[in-house]
């Protein structure tokens, strides 16, 4: 059934309609809350608070955003208080990632990648990536997962996180580069000529 119809019904007090609206998003809301808090218990509290708040504010929902995005905005607000200040990762400066050829040392030389599926099982890839994303501070990982797992646009994410679009883009890129580096460690094809040296 279309979302607008369900919203009208829910706003009129139809509980089943509300459940149909919320159900498809629960897992993602929980995953997002876990990402922000780094802790399962806090994430559960946040998801519960979010759904109760959604009931309280149901009449205020206007179809300017999708219902899912609206729920995200509530989770992000609730999660803001809980955000863990993880230790900042040592990330390679962006300038060092390209222009590798001009470097004296060759640690950042880019190499071609093997087919990931020739190196690891799909389930291993999944685990590897989710661990790598977990290593990122939430300020980078949250925009990243909203972009590529939840498929929100940069504009939507910027609005949700109250960031400029430029800042959002740069955080998404930062996360992307960080994950690229992690994957590089297992996927790059070693250059045999350099080993001889």
């Amino acid at each position, binding site marked *: 059934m279309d979302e607008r119809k369900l919203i009208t019904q829910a706003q009129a007090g139809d509980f089943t309609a509300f459940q149909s609206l919320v159900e498809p998003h*629960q897992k993602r809301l929980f*995953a997002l809350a876990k990402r922000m808090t780094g802790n399962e218990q806090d994430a559960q509290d946040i998801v519960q608070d979010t759904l109760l708040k959604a009931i309280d504010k149901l009449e205020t929902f206007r179809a300017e955003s999708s219902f899912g995005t609206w729920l995200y905005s509530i989770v992000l607000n609730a999660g803001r208080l809980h955000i863990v200040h993880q230790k900042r990762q040592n990330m390679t400066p962006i300038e060092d990632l390209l222009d590798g050829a001009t470097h004296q040392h060759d640690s950042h030389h880019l190499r071609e990648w093997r087919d990931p599926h020739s190196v690891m099982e799909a389930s291993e890839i999944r685990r590897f*990536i989710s661990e790598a994303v977990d290593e990122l501070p939430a300020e980078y990982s949250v925009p990243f997962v909203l972009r*590529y797992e939840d498929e929100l646009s940069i504009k939507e994410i910027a609005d949700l996180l109250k960031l400029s679009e430029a800042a959002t883009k740069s955080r998404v890129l930062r996360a992307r580069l960080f994950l690229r580096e992690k*994957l590089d460690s297992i996927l790059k094809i070693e250059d045999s000529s350099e080993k001889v040296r």
Partner: protein
Amino acid sequence: MKKCADYLQELSDYLDGQLDPQLCAEIEKHVGECTNCKLMFDSLKMTVKLCRESGQCEELPAEFAQRLNQAVKDHWIRKFGKA
């Protein structure tokens, strides 16, 4: 002249289909000529592809799902008088 590092954000926007056509052409030209940027481009693209593939998340813990359902239902009844 633009350095390769200057292309990074654009490379990323290009991969996301968020770049205007004129810049797209410029990127395509540079990536066609520059091995480093070509490798960066391919690996960034693969990174996102793998992340998308891995994006499915786990189910809610059963005990929590049940508790959540009940809390939501109770709250609904407080507000609307019925569920």
